[in-house]
């Protein structure tokens, strides 16, 4: 390999990126036209570059996070409906979440942001907010995990595909369930679907999620269908769809809860 070949080979990369000056570029092109060795090298580099450029774009795993988190800004028409449902279910107390919400009415404005960007960004956003919340005595800090957790991986949860009988659900369709027995909620959203509509009954950013057993919930106001007044009496039911994660809160003991869930849903 002559000196010229050596110099040309060093410049092939920049040549292919058109990063050489005009005269340099012409020299390389002229050399490539007659030098077999350099021509081969050039074509190899080109092919290799193409291989990398052709790599399929790998998508990060989708996050089962609601596309909108801003719903809670204003009163939601379906809220009344939600209370009816809670009544219909008799045992499952949706309203506890709402009560939490009422109890923290002042926070509402803040929970309303972030509507434009679901996904990681929002996650981090919420998680930072959650950290901040910690400063204000709210203990929850649990960042949503990028990979959805399966039941096998997480013993705290049980999944139930749900399709509620009309007498129990008031015509609402629930879409699957997660049961979290202890620890913190990561969650955030309660969604119902009836024959005519689908609405978010409740959405709650991460930073405001409940932490069961937290003294802060001692003074829950009595709500329709809600017997329990202490947070320690509550259980959370989670359900998750590809688009959203949902939660219900109930004052049932665990054993009855499983029964209720079994009645609502159609396990397996």
């Amino acid at each position: 390999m002559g000196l010229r070949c050596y110099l040309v080979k060093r410049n092939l990369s920049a040549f292919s990126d058109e990063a050489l000056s005009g005269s340099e570029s012409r020299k390389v092109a002229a050399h490539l036209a007659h030098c077999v060795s350099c021509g081969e090298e050039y074509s190899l580099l080109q092919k290799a570059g193409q291989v990398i450029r052709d790599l399929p774009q790998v998508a990060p795993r989708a996050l089962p996070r609601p596309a909108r988190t801003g719903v809670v800004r204003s009163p939601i028409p379906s809220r009344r409906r939600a209370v009816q449902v809670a009544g219909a279910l008799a045992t499952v107390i949706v309203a506890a979440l709402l009560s939490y919400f009422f109890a923290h009415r002042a926070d509402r404005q803040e929970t309303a942001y972030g509507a434009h960007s679901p996904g990681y960004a929002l996650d981090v956003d919420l998680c930072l907010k959650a950290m901040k919340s910690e400063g204000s005595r709210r203990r929850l800090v649990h960042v949503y995990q990028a990979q959805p957790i399966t039941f096998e991986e997480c013993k705290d949860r049980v999944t139930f595909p749900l399709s509620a009988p009309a007498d129990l659900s008031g015509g609402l369709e629930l879409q699957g369930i997660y049961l979290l027995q202890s620890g913190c909620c990561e969650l955030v959203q309660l969604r119902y679907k009836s024959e005519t509509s689908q609405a978010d009954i409740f959405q709650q950013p991460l930073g405001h999620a409940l932490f069961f057993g937290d003294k802060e919930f001692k003074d829950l106001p009595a709500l329709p269908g809600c017997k329990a007044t202490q947070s320690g009496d509550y259980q959370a039911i989670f359900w998750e769809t590809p688009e959203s994660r949902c939660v219900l809160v109930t004052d049932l003991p665990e054993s009855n809860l499983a029964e209720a869930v079994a009645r609502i849903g159609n396990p397996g």
Partner: protein
Amino acid sequence: MEGWVRLKQGGLKASPSIEKIWKKTGDFRSNNTEVRTIIDELNHLFDIEKTSLFNVIYRLTGNYADSHDILQDAFVRALESRRNFRGESSPKTWLYRIAVNCAYTYLSGRRRELEPTSSIEVAESRRSAEETVLSRERDELIQAALMSLDAKFRTLVLLRELEGMSYEEIAQVLRLSPGTVASRLSRARRLLARKLRKLGVV
């Protein structure tokens, strides 16, 4: 991962150190519009770039699952260090710089076996099963070739070929001179091409 505590359930929890940083960063609850704006801007930037960032991180580390964490980590660091961003580079290259550094931190901390690429969910168009297997094998070979390069060389190739960045942009991301970028890129490409030929990809 630095700054985060991994929970048994597999989730992540903010460590006290991050919390401290957060307290310095600003107070959401005070309705601070400046903080809000910065977060929104970052969210927006991150939204635009996250798939590209993810791909660079993934190809750089070769680990699909962990790339999610690294990406998240990068975003948190961006949020924390936004005050250090003085506009000498574009926000995009600044974000890439953080992401690349996070990936380096990961690589230096964990030299463990590569996760089989088969677990990744490549956005595949309707291909036959056979084609899928073939393309997956090919993908693994290419990843192996990439991993055979020094991380710094790998980054150069990825930023150039995958992201189509200019030499100036790469120089900003890696804090190198454009001349150094050109010479290292040349070397990186030659090494990669040899490796790919050896593995029979080209």
